[in-house]
């Protein structure tokens, strides 16, 4: 009976994910998933052999409270951190359940653990703790509390990680041979925790979207291995779904940055790029500088305007100001669209959420592949807080570190306006030839202030 209800829950999760294929059905889908989870939890309380209700209910209450507080008070800009933190919690929970199962077998003499279960316990410990400490590093780096944005590299790093991994495997083999709470168990737990840190610190801030996706996948796999430990198909199905989801997103992010998966994991991207930037631009280049009034006139007479936002827009908290500007233009019959690069935010789909929060209707949010063919017919592109994702060097300059990365072809529009604080190269430290094109007008200033000035200037026309 319990297993039937678990199956029901697993089916509801599949439904939830299926309904995420459209924003129209997604809300109902999410609720379906939540109800499925509720059913599974209640069923477990009822028929799971629970004796100590006070402790279990206290845990449920405490966790629910934490979850609610996190969900209500986390700003949309900090969504990557929240997802990172929750990945870590999921991994740790799975590893703890596996540990508890080992303790149980250690203390109940009458039954011995099957080979499958004990191998699954080892895997669960390894994946679970790697996910936990890896996620904590990612969380702290995203919060910029430690390590900063640049990768932390030292000689022999990859060999050390390999050694840690092999040592974990050896500890796991010992654990499988003698499944009890002893030295191999503690050693495996410790090594996995250190390995999680070791694998995550060489990855810089710019690559965090990939890491978050990967850890998302790991947290699913950890739940999945726990399903093998407990012989629970519900956990296996749900864990696999999350594992698959994380892998797909990791792949999409890697493609959007034109990097191979191994390059992201071991490349230490961002540390090497600095030297390239130091080589600097060759010779003087001219920039056309514009002001709000001039730009407003061009924008007002345009038929089509595409706004290309980057994370810099979110940093400047300019989403609402940009929306105000777009509304002013729309009132004058200008067709406004937003061009969203897959890595425009700090996690997959992040920019869409940030704009949705500013009440931009989602039918104005265009994916890169769909908007790129439209740029040659676009009158004005307004680039706000984006840099590398609109850098034409990615298309034309084979020596550029971002060469080959798919970009928004904003330079093909009739006029390009770029709102930027200064000509300083961005996050990855790469110069951008877009700024020196004859059809580009630079609007120097803070993104939010400039967007408001533009809106005001248009109103006055």
């Amino acid at each position: 009976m319990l297993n039937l209800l678990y199956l029901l829950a697993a089916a509801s999760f599949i439904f939830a994910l299926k309904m995420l294929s459209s924003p129209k059905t997604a809300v109902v889908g999410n609720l379906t998933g939540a109800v499925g989870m509720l059913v599974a939890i209640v069923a477990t309380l009822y028929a799971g052999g629970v004796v100590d209700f006070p402790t279990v209910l206290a845990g449920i209450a405490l966790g629910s409270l934490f979850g609610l507080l996190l969900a209500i008070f986390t700003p949309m800009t900090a969504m990557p951190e929240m997802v990172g933190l929750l990945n870590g919690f999921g991994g740790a929970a799975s590893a703890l359940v596996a540990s508890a199962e080992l303790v149980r077998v250690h203390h109940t003499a009458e039954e011995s653990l099957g080979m499958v279960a004990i191998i699954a316990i080892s895997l669960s410990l390894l994946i679970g703790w790697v996910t936990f400490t890896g996620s904590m590093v990612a969380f702290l780096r995203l919060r910029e509390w430690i390590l900063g944005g640049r990768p932390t590299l030292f000689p022999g790093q990859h060999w050390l990680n390999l050694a840690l991994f092999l040592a974990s495997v050896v500890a796991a083999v010992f654990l499988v041979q003698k499944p009890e709470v002893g030295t191999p168990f503690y050693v495996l737990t410790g090594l996995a925790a250190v390995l999680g840190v070791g694998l995550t610190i060489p990855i810089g801030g710019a690559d965090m979207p990939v890491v978050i996706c990967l850890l998302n996948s790991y947290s699913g796999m950890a739940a999945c291995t726990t399903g093998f430990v407990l012989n629970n198909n519900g956990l296996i199905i749900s864990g696999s779904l999350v594992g698959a989801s994380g892998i797909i997103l990791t792949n999409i992010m890697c493609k959007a940055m034109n990097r191979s998966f191994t390059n992201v994991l071991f490349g230490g991207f961002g540390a090497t790029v600095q030297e390239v930037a130091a080589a600097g631009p060759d010779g003087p280049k001219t920039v056309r500088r514009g002001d709000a009034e001039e730009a407003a006139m061009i924008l007002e007479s345009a038929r089509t305007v595409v706004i290309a936002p980057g994370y810099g827009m979110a940093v400047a908290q300019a989403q609402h100001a940009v929306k105000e500007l777009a509304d002013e233009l729309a009132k004058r019959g200008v067709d406004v669209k937003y061009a969203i690069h897959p890595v425009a935010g700090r996690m997959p789909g992040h920019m869409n959420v940030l704009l949705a929060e500013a009440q931009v209707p989602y039918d104005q949010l265009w994916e890169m592949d769909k908007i790129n063919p439209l740029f040659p017919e676009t009158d004005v592109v307004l680039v706000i807080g984006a840099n590398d994702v609109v850098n034409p060097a990615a298309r034309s300059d084979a020596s550029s570190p971002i060469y080959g990365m798919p970009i928004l072809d904003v330079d093909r529009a009739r006029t390009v306006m770029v709102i930027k604080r200064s000509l300083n190269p961005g996050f990855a430290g790469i110069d951008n030839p877009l700024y020196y094109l004859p059809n580009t007008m630079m609007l120097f200033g803070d993104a939010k202030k400039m967007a408001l000035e533009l809106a005001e200037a248009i109103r006055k026309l």
Partner: protein
Amino acid sequence: MESLVMMLTVFVLAVFVGFEVISKVPPLLHTPLMSGSNAISGVTVLGAIIATGAAVTSGMKWLGFVAVVLAMTNVVGGFTVTHRMLGMFRRKK
């Protein structure tokens, strides 16, 4: 052995279903997809509840308790924040 084959069957099929379903989620909703899958990976709470509720030692009980708290944070935090986010996506009037 039989139960292993059974579990592996379920696992392999679920991975295929996962790839099939998730590749249809548009980039527009990738962030809610991640927070929603956070909630789903909190399903490990079921194991945590059993471990805590049927603990044979106090050590096992505490391991289970912490697992329940962490997994439940995932479940409630994940579903709630996904709901909050999805509520922001609106069409043009």
